[in-house]
């Protein structure tokens, strides 16, 4: 019998923060967290879960990226892509704050334009600090392939952030 209360209590905050970091909206983060746990229930029916943290992190990340993409489609029609990922300023100095907030928002916008696997791998590695092995387990791929996905993701993001690649809806 799975102790769901313990699992939600133990992993809920991290799952919520994972979602919030990508969505920057508390209501969306709440929805995303609940969806992640409900999806985890389904997964636990199919197979024993060895690493709840990784599983929930992966599901929450995937759901949050889906929502980011949805926002991108909606805001593209309004011709205001900044709406996708407005990030509040933080850190030292007002100018630096504003610059960082804008850069973070552009990163979210760019992540939402990556292929799903690349976006998931990138977020799990660089925002959730998961190891290559954990990512490989969760995505059902070889560990070596994680490196390939991350390399491709970074290359694409670099181009998008530098403005080399035209921003397109995906």
């Amino acid at each position, binding site marked *: 019998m*799975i102790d*769901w209360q313990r699992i*939600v*209590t133990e992993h*809920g*905050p991290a799952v*919520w923060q994972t979602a*919030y*970091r990508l969505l*920057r909206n*508390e209501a969306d*983060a*709440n929805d995303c*967290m*609940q969806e992640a*746990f*409900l*999806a985890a*229930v*389904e*997964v*636990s*029916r199919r197979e024993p879960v060895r690493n709840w943290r990784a599983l929930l992190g992966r*599901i929450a990340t995937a759901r949050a990226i*889906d929502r980011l993409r*949805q926002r991108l489609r*909606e805001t593209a*029609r309004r011709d205001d892509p900044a709406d996708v990922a407005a*990030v*509040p300023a*933080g850190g030292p100095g007002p100018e630096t704050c504003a610059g*960082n*907030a804008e*850069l*973070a928002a*552009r*990163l*979210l916008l760019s992540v939402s334009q990556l*292929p799903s*696997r690349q976006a998931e791998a990138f977020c799990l*590695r*660089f*925002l959730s600090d998961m*190891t*290559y*092995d954990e990512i490989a387990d*969760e*995505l*059902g*791929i070889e*560990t*070596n392939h*994680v*490196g390939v*996905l*991350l390399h491709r993701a*970074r290359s694409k993001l*670099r181009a998008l*952030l*530098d403005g080399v690649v035209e921003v397109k809806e995906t």
Partner: protein
Amino acid sequence: MNGNTHQQEPDIVSHAVRALRDAPMPDGPTPEQLARTTAAVRSAALASPPLTLKERIRTMPRLTKYAAAILLVLLPLAVVIAVLVVGTESSVTFAAVKKQLLEARSLSFSMTTQIEGMPEQTGKAYYKMPGRMRVEMGPTVNIVNYPARRWLMLLPEGKKFMRMDISDMPGIDEIGLEDFMAELRKALEGAVEELGERQVDGVRAKGYRVCESGMWQDIWVDAETGQPLRFETELPWSNGHVTVLEVILNPPLDDALFNMTPPTGYEEHPAPPVSRLMDATEDDLVGGLRAITTLNDGVFPKYPMMDPQLTDKLRQANLPEEQLHETVQKVVRMGAYASVLPTRCTDWNYAGHGVTLGDARTPIMWWRLKDSPTYRMLYGDLHFEDVDAAEVEPTRPTGG
């Protein structure tokens, strides 16, 4: 490869990652939200015991199982419900449409199905509480009475009728019109995007696209009043779609429309046991595909379903009655499995057209179950392989 370290390159990506990680993060989630999530998870976990793949397919939302036989009814109704859920930006709020939905005592609409290479079919559907449905589609009139657990199919051209007992369907005791709408509403809580405005039947209309399980449904409403005008949705595994028009909530419907007594002069035709459709499996999909491909001279047909050409070939084959019955059963069970499968998937596709039966190297059909890391891949020799999702290019809008 050592995955425990990663390079901190002083490039713009690393800078952006740091900026995002350093951005203010509120305290969260609230204890109330955690409690709500715990309650939802416990409820979901208790809803049913651990299931195998086949069991999960067998225990899919009860009413989607009817899709095998009344798919053309379910999808249009789903689209109708979608507009009630989605609402509009004008006068219709979610609370208002939900109230309207829950208080609806009857519903009617007309519909048209178009599949490339097949004749267009039009029909009318009527629903009336408690749990009664009438669908006039093609050569059939279907009358279902859920409380009585009976399904009557009339074939006016041949003056025949079939009576089907649906009492042994799993979960039949819980089925009612409200359940029907509630389940569809839940299924339709997918991504919503706006399609802009266009003229529909001479009226300025606003469009919305709902996407669930990779299947799209377009909803067009009067831009001024929010009244539904036209809905369109695709049919799985084929280049076809259903258009729904003339949606009316709470129309006055005569009880005679739902009369379960066959008209005078109609002759009874033996009906297959409907419950046999409920436990269709991958084996049935394979069996049906083998049957229709054999009919099609060993080449997979354009779509994984019977079409007029294949029906003609079946007639021309002059099979003994027992063999004919067996072939039809295979095709029906294949349809039962194929029609509900997309509801469990994020991505699915059929690409068998022209592939020779026995070709072990060419995939003809593949799908990815929700939250699965792999695709189920069916090849031309009808063997399965599970393939890493990273190696498959998604074909659906929300695939992958």
